[in-house]
């Protein structure tokens, strides 16, 4: 070895980040990329939330006051696309980036350059998507499911929407490949699969779901694109195609996607609840098997989104029974968390409050999901506000609360500072109250007959819609507290200890707070 090389060989422990914007643009560090993903998601959360507030403002009272129905439709469409692809998915990938290497005792993600690329595609994808709102003809207005033939009507912004979905898909698939490669190759010696924290397990399974279904979505939207611009008739009955086939293909992606949005949340709960109950997770192995069962079942229930399209009786039966089955492994998970809390020694810091909020309200959403599985009843519920209430109960206090719980839980490790506990608790309580004011009445109006995706409604729905709109504005603006707490914590605050939480268990709590730029370059010893 020549002297020159020795001199230039930086010792990795001292190799800190570059300075300025180049650090963020060129970074291959899993912690930097995790931060980028999380901040991106926070920004998109406010954009998607703003769209929801436009929807709720129009629905404040009957009659059309504020927006044109076409713009209303593009708001419901974009709100969903932004929240699913721009908020929940990037936030989970961000958490995976930050936590998975530290949880398995690895030095970084397995494919760091791919990691950089999979993040930096996202801002461009969303720039494309959001720019359609300013184009002639407006943004996509056929619902986030882009059902043919409706989605094929409208302006040429359609092509931009399809390309942006392709970009998001490429980003997700690359991120997933990276996560799979990391989990299989970067574990510290002794970190066997059945010793991995559940967050790692749930993400491993989620990554496989993503790799399996994102190409299906890509195929479906590409067929839409060729139907629109190149004269094919995949989904046009007049040309020998089949509009229902689009729905089958879409939901073959769409249903696993639902679990992509919730499995990592299950992993987060399985980290937080034992910490604050000061008791090991109950039924670790059954948690892993339940997650795998849910993932498997998610592939064979897609047509429960389509009980009104006119399937054969046998098909409706199959999808009803398969859907009901999902409540078994999901129930196992809820029961395991309860058993973890049982006879623990609980404290209720903000992460635990959000975790309990998750547990209670996700259960409500799960139970309304069981109601929706009953096909004859679903025919009444389908495409009403009852469905809107259901999936917001599993996505907002489900996915979103898990992300907030994770942020409060791990932010001391990320920044080295404790967040403002008092503000965190205020954020939890205000959010939870308004969230229920917002979404609970939707069950009522849905059952009473209010269809979803309508900009104006009959008078008997007026009272509950006003209540929901009050909840929406309360919930929306209370998220500014969250943004404030996060920014405040990034800037400073009471110094966090390495362990941060009294009952914390796991490798991430063995490194310093804030976590050094490079961790576990020497693999830790796993007991």
């Amino acid at each position, binding site marked *: 070895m020549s002297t020159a090389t020795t001199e230039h060989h930086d010792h990795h422990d001292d190799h800190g980040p570059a300075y300025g914007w180049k650090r963020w643009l060129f970074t291959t560090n899993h912690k930097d990329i995790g931060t980028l993903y999380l901040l991106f998601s926070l920004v998109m959360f406010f954009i998607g939330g703003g769209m929801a507030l436009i929807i709720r403002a129009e629905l404040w009272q*009957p*009659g059309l006051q504020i927006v044109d*129905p*076409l713009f209303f*439709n593009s708001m419901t469409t974009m709100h969903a696309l932004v929240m699913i692809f721009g908020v929940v998915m990037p936030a989970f990938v961000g958490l995976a980036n930050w936590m998975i290497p530290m949880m398995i005792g690895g030095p970084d993600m397995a494919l760091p350059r791919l990691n950089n690329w999979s993040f930096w595609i996202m801002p461009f994808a969303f720039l494309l998507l959001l720019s359609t709102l300013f*184009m002639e*003809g*407006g943004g996509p207005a*056929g*619902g986030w499911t882009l*059902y043919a*033939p*409706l989605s*094929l*009507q*409208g*302006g040429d912004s359609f092509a931009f929407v399809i390309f942006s979905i392709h970009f998001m898909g490429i980003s997700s698939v690359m991120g997933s490949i990276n996560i799979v490669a990391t989990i299989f190759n970067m574990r510290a010696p002794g970190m066997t699969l059945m010793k991995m924290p559940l967050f790692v397990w749930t993400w491993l399974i989620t990554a496989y779901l993503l790799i399996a279904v994102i190409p299906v979505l890509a195929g479906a939207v590409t067929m839409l694109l060729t139907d629109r611009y190149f004269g094919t008739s995949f989904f046009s009955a*007049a040309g020998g195609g089949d509009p229902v086939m689009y729905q089958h293909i879409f939901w073959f992606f769409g249903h696993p996607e639902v679990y992509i949005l919730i499995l990592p949340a299950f992993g987060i709960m399985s980290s937080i609840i034992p910490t604050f*109950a000061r*008791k090991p997770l109950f*039924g670790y192995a*059954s948690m892993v098997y339940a997650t795998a069962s849910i993932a498997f079942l998610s592939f064979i229930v897609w047509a429960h989104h389509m009980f*009104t*399209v*006119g399937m054969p009786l046998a098909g409706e*039966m199959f999808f*009803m029974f398969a859907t009901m089955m999902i409540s*078994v492994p999901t*129930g*196992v998970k809820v029961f395991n968390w*309860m*058993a*973890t809390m*049982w*006879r*623990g*020694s*609980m404290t209720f810091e903000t992460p635990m409050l959000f975790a*309990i909020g998750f547990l209670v309200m996700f*259960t409500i959403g799960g139970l*309304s999901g069981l*109601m929706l599985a009953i*096909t*004859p*009843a679903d*025919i*009444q519920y*389908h*495409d009403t506000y009852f469905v809107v209430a259901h999936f917001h109960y599993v996505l907002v206090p489900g996915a979103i609360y898990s992300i907030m719980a994770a942020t409060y839980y791990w932010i001391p490790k990320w920044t080295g500072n404790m967040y403002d506990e008092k503000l965190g608790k205020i954020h939890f309580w205000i959010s939870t109250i308004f969230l229920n004011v917002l979404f609970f009445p939707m*069950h*009522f109006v849905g*059952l*009473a*007959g209010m269809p979803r*995706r309508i900009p*104006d*409604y*009959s008078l*008997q*729905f007026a009272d509950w819609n006003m209540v929901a709109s009050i909840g929406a504005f309360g919930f929306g603006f209370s998220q500014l507290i969250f943004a404030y707490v996060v920014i405040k914590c990034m800037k400073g605050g009471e110094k966090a200890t390495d362990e941060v939480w009294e009952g914390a268990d796991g490798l991430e709590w063995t490194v310093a707070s804030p976590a050094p730029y490079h961790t576990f370059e020497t693999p830790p010893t796993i007991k």
Partner: protein
Amino acid sequence: MRSTFCAVVSRLCWLTVLLPGSKAFADINMPVGVTPISKEVYGLHMLIFWICCVIGAAVFAVMFYSIFKHRKSKGHKPADFHESTTVEILWTAVPLVILVSMAIPAAKTLIAMEDTSNADLTIKVTGYQWKWHYEYLDSGVNFFSSLAAEHNEARQVDSGIDVSTIDNYLKEVDNPLVVPVGKKIRFLHTAADVIHSWWVPDLAVKKDAIPGFINENWALIEEPGIYRGKCTELCGRDHGFMPVVVKAVPEDEYLAWVAEQSGAGEEAETVADGDAAEEDTDREWAMDELLARGEKVYTANCVACHQAGGQGVPGAFPAITGSPVAIGDVDKHIEVVYEGVAGSAMASFAAQLSDADMAAVLTYQRNALGNSVGDTIQPSAIKALR
């Protein structure tokens, strides 16, 4: 003492079983409906609802007991258990049993719902952007049904009309579907443009109307009355404004209605070859007459996309004002409206408009909304195309 207890119990039973279906809960619960199927569906809905309530109550009771008792601030020391095969098998098996007990009645109802055999009459329902077309296959009576004019006016942005003054706001149509009570009615569902979904909660009938496909389901209405529903599949800009109104009447009244409808002369709105339609088609119309009628037709059929002032929505729906079609070659203009434009939202209006209506609206588009071509299109010209 005992009698008080019984009274309380019976009161509670009455509350939980009857009240949710009563008027007091009409605004927050599913309607019981007026068909045997809708009543079964309501029963299933309440059964699964109460099962979920019981499960929820049990789960939350255990959870909150633990939250209040097993907390550090009360000095509770953590236990160390982390598995128990017995309880894990138990809480996998018990839900399974509950699910099976729920699946059996659900499957029975589903089988009954899908049995469309031996219907007494068949009605074909076709979804259009944004109205319904009903065709009684047994008698040939057919007509379009769209949002009532008063409601349509009130629901425009900045209409200046207080919608709370309008009875049944957004739930009224010009021509309701009239059906007999006590008969098994088979509905066939299809669509002319995009996917719609025909829903009447009181009948527990909801089926997607899909272009190129025909779906079917059925209803047997037990009580006369007016039952209102909506389109429940997003179908574009005016998805929220295509209500369904079903008027169920005794059979003799229904038969009289059918006779009246299929009798001569009553229907200028349809393409049925009645005398009046014949007369409208054959005579020469004056410009003023065409414009007056054309404005009405335009308001009912064109404004949703092309807008009241004819300016369209740039990029999505072309303008009429100054449009190369509307001020250009008259045959091309007729072709666009008569046949529609493939691959766009512009539907064929051949079946939707009578000869006179189509001639009037074409003339209106060419000589109003800022256009002034100066020519008239006569109903006879449209008739020649058919």
